[in-house]
């Protein structure tokens, strides 16, 4: 197994451990957010190993560098220190939920081998910003511009939601 493949499995393990750490951590919301950051950075590393360089850079800049900072910002602003909630009415829905997703995952992983078509070789410069930029600005320019409108709507919505009410 080459070094790069070994790195892939290492980052895969790191992602799984970090996402489990995020979901299972009930005491400290900030620690959950930091586990999420680790998961995203290791996913970015996996993207680099899969030749998706621009996507990896954008993943780290946007996801790990801005979105999770926004989460941490809200946690700090609201000063949510301890995750102490009174006990729920019944633990059955929780256990059923975990069982259902576990079963779904197991069925999927059972059916996975042999179900995917063959792999084609990748051309030179694949996944680099030049190739992707060309595609983005020629064939997919309409979705590109549409997402900018979406972001405008999100900005306006977020500002209005977070504004203090002028009573």
């Amino acid at each position, binding site marked *: 197994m080459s070094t790069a493949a070994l790195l892939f499995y290492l980052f895969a393990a790191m992602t799984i451990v970090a996402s489990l750490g995020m979901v299972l951590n009930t005491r400290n919301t900030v620690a959950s957010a930091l586990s999420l950051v680790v998961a995203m950075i290791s996913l970015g590393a996996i993207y680099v190993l899969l030749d998706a*360089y621009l996507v990896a*850079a954008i993943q780290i800049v946007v996801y790990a560098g801005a979105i999770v900072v926004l989460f941490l910002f809200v946690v*700090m602003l609201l000063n949510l220190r301890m995750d102490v909630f009174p006990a729920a009415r019944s633990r059955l829905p929780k256990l059923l939920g975990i069982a259902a997703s576990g079963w779904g995952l197991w069925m999927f992983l059972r059916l996975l081998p042999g179900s995917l078509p063959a792999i084609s070789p990748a051309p030179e410069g694949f996944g680099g*910003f030049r190739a992707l930029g060309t595609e983005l600005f020629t064939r997919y320019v309409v979705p590109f511009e549409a997402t900018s409108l979406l972001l405008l709507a999100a900005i306006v919505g977020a500002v209005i939601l977070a504004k203090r009410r002028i009573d």
Partner: protein
Amino acid sequence: MPDLGVILKLLFMVVVVMAALLPVITWVERKQSAVMQDRIGANRADILGIRLLGLLHPLADVLKLFGKEDVVPLGANRFMHLLAPVIALIPGIITLAVVPFAGVYDFGSGPVSMVAADVDWGMLYVFAVGSIATYGTVIAGWSSNSNWGLLGSLRGSAQMISYEVTMGLSLVGLFMCFNSLKLQEIAQAQDTTFRVFGFLQTLGFVHALPRWLSVVRLPMWGILLQPLGFILFLTCIMAENKRAPFDVPEGESEIIAGYHMEYSGMRFGLFYTAEFLEIPVIAMIVATLFLGGWTIPWLSTQRIVGPLTGEIGVGAAMGLCLILQVFSFFAKVIFMIWLQMQIRWTLPRFRYDQVMDLCWKIMLPLSLANIFVTGLVILAIQGLSR
């Protein structure tokens, strides 16, 4: 395994910056501010009576910081309290991997590029790594279990993520001019000169430029092609460093020491090191992008190597050129460090709402306008020169 060349180049950059530049920069801060403020500055530290103009003060600082007690406030999260300065420090160091300290040389067995990591997406890596640096500020204040710390942390994180946006946008014009994200290619593209009055010929006012006018040439540096981009980028990256007039998160007179208030001893030393490490890193990136990097103005690599090859052979000519260009690079880095110190000790601190207004209401529209105008000019030049 990375090969020996990469390791050597990386070691060179890290050792030069951390061991040679960093202590001198703390000395420069003290002495430059002293000269500007008409006082002497710190000059008492000595070893056996030898004072060296105060150059031993960085050593004294380090020894003092190591000797202090490590105080972690009651109720603070110990692990995150320790993690925060480390996260603040590491992005500064790993940015050095993509900065070219010399050009591409052919000593006879193929071109050797003097960058540790010569990747096509160098500037994207710099942006990505810079975004990670935000977490040092975010976690530091929160894990300190103190009101001032939290306040400084909130302000700092909001400031940093705001200025990242404009930082990226202000460079898009530069990427359009030089057609690359690779720092080595951008530096190489600045290795030539352009005729100052060439626009007369491009616009069609004269058929061919007379010889006496076409002799006036300027090096094709980023600052001459993108002056507004330079000002915007320098402002944004100094705001990222939370130095200069943008040090609201650690505002000494407002919120005591802000997000690194509850840090003492070497933990504070790590924050201090992180802040001062960013200064040469910023200087190197700005020098590479806008001031021509390792290129010597009006003396391109070809003009140095060409005549010398006949005299002393290709290898020696390339080696001499390498040394000259490394000196040129570090001369520009030192100039940028000096400039950052000047700005820091001249301007008063901005108010927090002024900082955020500046980013979102002034610099973001300006950077978008810069992209727009740059695109128009490039299209016009391409269209007219057909």
